[in-house]
């Protein structure tokens, strides 16, 4: 199956959707469903395949590269996107038809980010995803969501300018935009130039991947965007962005100094994220900082770059995707039910409808990495991979994990807290949320308890000689 369909389909439907009125919502469903099915077909395969666009061979033309990591991510992204749609289907957004267009375009852009093998093409898709993210960020009910989106936009624009500068520096010195070609040529580059280009790209991608200190936008945006917007931003986007980060920073630039920097920044991100999440009083804000922390751990693993680290990072990414899907969609619904997502307001909501507790609890447990859930497996890999690098990193990671466990359980407890003031009235969980939520719970539990042998696609990700082979990646 040609993965171009993954980009073309939502794109085409989006163009149709702008004048289709109410049908645009239907288009959104069709596009995401079709994408999920197509990604399932693409998932069925292994090795590295290059698909050229426009008939021009790389490095002259643009190509799409599918490797084992991409296959997993593609499936995850499209599946989570679909689930996120289902989970938040009860939400009615302002100008829903046009929002559907934005969602479709974000889906296309995310698939593009995952697939593309060209530095500038990545920039274009990053811009599409970023702009759709700004729109999602501004989709909240509160006025503050607009301000948050503006803040995101300013930082995001700086980031994309910097990324573009980095690309141009690479182009100016190597004469190519193709990732594989550039990766082969940067080795003979002046280290200062490489470092500058790498740093510019780290800033550019760091903003989207929420690497500290480029993640200042994230808390406000995640906390104030609409339910659907924040769910997709928190669950789907990180996978694509980090995939881009892997391709650009570790595959193309691949500078040892930069990797050390990323490790340091990643750990700092994790610490700061967890500490700040600990002190939050709003559910979605807490989730936002937790997402930052998760991103930090994942980026740190990418900086380490060993086989186990890649397996750990991809597991963590998927886990974070499914977990945050559950958490954000439930949190948005809870905010709707309770009137606000402040700590005191949501007390005992889980008593009214146990399903809330189940979904939120499962999401939280998998994020903090409790056994039976997918998160635990990924946590094992994280510790194992970091242990090989240095003895200090896992210690720090585990300390932050302890903080994480504490605040997540505090929120779970808060939901199920026995409270005499609570009225007996049950607040129903929307069918879509229940359905998608239960499916996601099944997925995280299934990934948590099936034997390792059934998850060999993760091991294939760990086979770095194939994943990062410079000859194959460009299809040359």
């Amino acid at each position, binding site marked *: 199956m040609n993965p171009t369909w993954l980009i073309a389909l939502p794109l085409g439907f989006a163009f149709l959707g702008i004048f289709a009125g109410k049908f645009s919502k239907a288009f959104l469903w069709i596009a995401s469903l079709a994408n999920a099915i197509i990604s399932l077909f693409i998932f069925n395969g292994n090795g590295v395949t290059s698909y050229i*666009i426009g008939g021009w061979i790389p490095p002259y033309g643009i190509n799409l590269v599918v490797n084992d990591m991409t296959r997993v991510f593609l499936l995850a992204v499209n599946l989570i996107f679909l689930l996120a749609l289902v989970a938040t289907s009860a939400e009615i957004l302002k100008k829903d038809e046009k929002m559907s267009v934005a969602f479709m375009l974000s889906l296309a852009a995310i698939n593009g980010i995952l697939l593309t093998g060209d530095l500038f093409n990545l920039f274009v898709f990053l811009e599409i995803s970023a702009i759709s993210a700004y729109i999602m960020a501004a989709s909240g009910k509160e006025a503050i969501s607009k301000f948050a989106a503006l803040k995101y936009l300013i930082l995001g624009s700086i980031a994309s300018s910097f990324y573009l500068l980095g690309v141009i520096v690479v182009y100016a010195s190597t004469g190519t935009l193709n990732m594989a070609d550039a990766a082969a040529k940067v080795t003979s580059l002046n280290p200062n130039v490489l470092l500058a280009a790498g740093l510019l790209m780290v800033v550019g991608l760091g903003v989207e991947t929420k690497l500290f200190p480029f993640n200042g936008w994230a808390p406000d945006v995640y906390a104030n965007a609409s339910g659907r917007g924040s769910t997709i931003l928190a669950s789907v986007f990180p996978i694509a962005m980090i995939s881009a980060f892997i391709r650009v920073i570790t595959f193309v630039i691949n500078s040892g100094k930069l990797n050390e920097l990323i490790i340091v920044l990643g750990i700092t991100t994790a610490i700061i994220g967890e500490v700040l999440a600990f002190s939050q009083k709003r559910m979605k804000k807490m989730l936002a900082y937790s997402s930052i922390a998760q991103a930090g751990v994942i980026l740190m693993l990418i900086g380490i770059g060993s086989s186990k680290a890649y397996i750990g990072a991809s597991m963590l990414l998927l886990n974070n995707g499914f977990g945050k899907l559950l958490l954000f969609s439930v949190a948005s619904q809870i905010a709707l039910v309770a009137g606000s997502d402040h700590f005191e307001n949501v007390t005992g909501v889980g008593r009214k409808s146990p399903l809330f507790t189940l979904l939120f609890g499962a999401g939280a447990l998998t994020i903090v990495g409790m056994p039976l859930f997918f998160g635990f497996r990924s946590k094992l890999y994280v510790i194992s991979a970091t242990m090989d690098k240095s003895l200090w990193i896992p210690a720090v990671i585990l300390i932050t994990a302890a903080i994480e466990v504490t605040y997540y359980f505090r929120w779970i407890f808060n939901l199920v807290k026995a409270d005499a003031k609570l009225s007996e009235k049950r607040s129903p969980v929307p069918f879509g949320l229940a359905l998608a939520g239960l499916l996601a719970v099944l997925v995280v539990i299934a990934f948590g308890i099936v034997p390792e042998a059934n998850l060999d696609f993760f091991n294939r990700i760990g086979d770095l000689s194939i994943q990062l082979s410079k000859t194959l990646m460009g299809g040359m």
Partner: protein
Amino acid sequence: MKKAIAALIAFLFFLMFVNILNSDSEEFKGIPKFGEVNLTERVSNKYISKSVSGDSGEIVYGKTENAESGSANMVTSIVVNYRSFDTLGEVTVLFLAATGVAILIGGGQRKSLAISVNPIVKISARIIATLLLAFGAYVFIHGHLTPGGGFPGGTIIAAGTLLMLVADDKKRTSKLLKILEGTMGFLYVVIGIAGLLVTGSFLKNFLPTGTMGNLFSAGLIPIIYSVIGLKVGAELSALLDDFFAEEGRK
């Protein structure tokens, strides 16, 4: 104080770039000195000689037929042929931004001006707008031969719309623009998919490229540029209209 820090940061950034500029040396490659670019080391060399798929000999204006990319304007051949996928993305960005603007501030009504606009202004605006439309169309249709193309062409069309909107306080753009915009975008995707179905590669040119320098040459390029031009024109017109509309009164 804050300004001083800001200036310092900006200056350091400047220094950082100065540091890496002109870093090309014998030992290491780097950013070449201004004007001393060796194009043979870059991929654009093949774009200029149009020999990506194979060495096709020298390209001569007005003579070479069926070059792999028929556009005389090399920038256009890159934008719409070699890297057409980027352009699709670019169109999408603009489309998305326009949609975003519509979501955020669209849907309102225009405020009437306190004084009525002179009919002469209105009529002359209409005439100039028509001229601008024609000029815009010219720019994007000749995109493969002369400077310019879909984006400036579309913008010129939008400038016409702007003129009409400024001249008449009751003027609104037609809803049909949205349809035009959407259809044109869809058409671009369809062309891409057609390439995928016909040749097995998304957005691949499946038309003959003709003789270099002719208007009807360059395969898909004029078609795509027209699509882009119309789309951009419609899009920007709608966007301007959104900026004219005031929120609150529907």
